[in-house]
């Protein structure tokens, strides 16, 4: 178990290191310099040079990477070009907002996805299954703003049930915040429903076809008991991994939803940083998303290993 853990941690660090390289160098192939982008077209060349020097972007690439990654390792995520202050408070506030939205989406979608997948599996190949599968697959590949606009038009504009902006404003109560987050959460729920129900369906079908399920049926257990005690316990294992790894998507793929609903989350922060060519902010934000994904995957692996002892000692999985 210790060796397994160490190996997972080693792989995780390797992945994060490669990720930091990709993020950093993607930010460097951009035409134009940050000083010019910040100060605008009409700034004096000397002022642009001074700002570039102050930001450190006139140094060689390798020096910049080393000082950036060194700073990140010490908890210093860099200095925003646009705001001329540390990016860390911005990232922290945005991350908390994004987590609120993501959490609400998860709370809605996990039970729905599992129920949908299990129902589809119980009626494999029949109408109900095809409808759930095709709907899930379609919803999963619809851009968030498409479903977002449909729910805004229906619930916000026509029925006027819910507010169409995500932020409840300063000092709003928990209930009001929650109310504002329902509409933005729906597109995320749609996207995730496809994956979770698909995994739950596949896991359930596998469990239904297994010998232990046949034994349970043959020894005369009622169908609901068979499903609850024998099928579900086994079928939900792979679903846990999917749910955990979708956190990475959720925290990052929020770009569109947060932009559409004008919500100050991590996705919106990255989008604005990209438009303003604020690469310090962009790099830090993208790196945080990668870290969240890698940590979530690790957590899923550990949880899965804890729940399924066969994975600990078996050969390559």
């Amino acid at each position, binding site marked *: 178990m210790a060796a*397994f853990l160490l190996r997972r941690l080693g792989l995780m660090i390797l992945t994060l290191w*490669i990720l930091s390289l990709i993020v950093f160098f993607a*930010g460097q192939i951009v035409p134009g310099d940050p000083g010019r982008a910040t100060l605008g077209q009409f700034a004096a060349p000397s002022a642009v040079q001074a700002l570039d020097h102050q930001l450190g972007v006139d140094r060689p690439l390798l020096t910049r990477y080393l000082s950036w990654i060194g700073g990140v390792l010490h908890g210093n995520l860099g200095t925003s070009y646009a705001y001329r202050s540390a990016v860390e408070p911005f990232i922290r506030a945005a991350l908390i907002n994004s987590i609120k939205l993501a959490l609400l989406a998860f709370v809605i979608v996990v039970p729905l996805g599992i129920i949908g997948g299990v129902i589809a599996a119980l009626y494999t190949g029949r109408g109900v299954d095809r409808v759930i599968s095709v709907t899930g697959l379609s919803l999963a*590949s*619809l851009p968030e703003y498409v479903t977002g606009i*449909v729910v805004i038009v229906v619930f916000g504009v026509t029925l006027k049930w819910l507010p169409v902006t995500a932020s409840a404003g300063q000092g709003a109560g928990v209930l009001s915040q929650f109310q504002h987050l329902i509409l933005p959460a729906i597109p995320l729920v749609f996207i995730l429903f496809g994956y979770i129900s*698909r995994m739950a369906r596949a896991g359930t079908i596998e469990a239904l076809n297994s010998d232990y399920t046949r034994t349970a049926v043959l020894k005369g257990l009622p169908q609901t008991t068979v499903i609850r005690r024998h099928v579900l316990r086994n079928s939900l294992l792979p679903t846990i991994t999917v749910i955990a790894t979708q956190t990475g998507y959720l925290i990052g793929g929020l770009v569109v939803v947060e932009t559409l609903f004008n919500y100050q989350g991590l996705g919106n922060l990255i989008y604005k940083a990209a438009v303003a060519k604020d690469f310090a902010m962009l790099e830090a934000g993208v790196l945080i*998303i990668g870290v969240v*994904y890698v940590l979530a995957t690790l957590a899923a692996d550990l949880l899965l290993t804890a729940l399924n002892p066969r994975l600990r000692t078996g050969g390559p*999985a």
Partner: protein
Amino acid sequence: MSDTGGPPSPSADPLGALGTQTVAIAVEAPTQRVAPAAWRLLLRRPTFLVGAGILLFWIVCAIFGRSFAPYDPLAQQLLASNQASSAAHWFGTDPLGRDVLSRVIVGARTILIITPLATILGTILGTALGLAMGYLGGWFDTVASRIVEAILALPFVIIAFLFAVAVGPSVPAITVIIGLVFTPLIARTVRAAVLAERSLDYVPAARLLGERPARVMFGEILPNVMPAILVEFTVRLAYAVFGVATLSFLGFGIQPPTPDWGADVAANYTGLLAGYWWQTLFPALAIASLVVAITLITDSIEQVLAS
């Protein structure tokens, strides 16, 4: 994904899970060529016919749209701005008085050009990489797997977006970016399919006959993993629509005034608060119908390959 042990972990890309899932089904199917019989099976499926019908409609719009659209999609009539749907303008008009129906019809063109090209590019590169990773193995596979893993740690949209910011918006740029972002995803699926094939007798047999690695990979293994690649291709196609439409919405795709569904939604969604819902709802529904059409086709192909 990793060949170095540990439980399998699905990707950050939401469709990754679906992709591998479909491959599992496709690989189980006997690996014959997709014969006319398969075509006949496909044509008997109502879901396939509906999907193909919608897709065909948009292809006709993309090619001939300009000639049958009721108005010039770029013509502004500032006196007729923000009009709700009427007999003259079925889908209403946008803030510049342009006809929304005409823009939806002509807007099919850009997305229908970029989507297949990007998916084909990604499939070719991903297949080559996946074949090499699965067949050669060793250090090449280990290094490539690590890099693929790192790229997949970021949501697809974020990477595409990062590179779109870097190289600037243009049609060729988006096509290449989406193709490149798909490469590791497709490579992973192909690699898994190749690993399953590699242990079958015909591969060592070909090697013993003295065939070079490239010949074994492309001549022997490739035809046998084709069904898996075909399913992966159609799944990715739907996801390419997602990618192109999302980049357009974020302003890194087609630039105005060229009619484009994603860009039109982005330009007009603030009008929702004023009640001008038709300016965004119709382009959004157009994207939705295209995605659903491709999904129906994908699902039918999968069903036929599995039967």
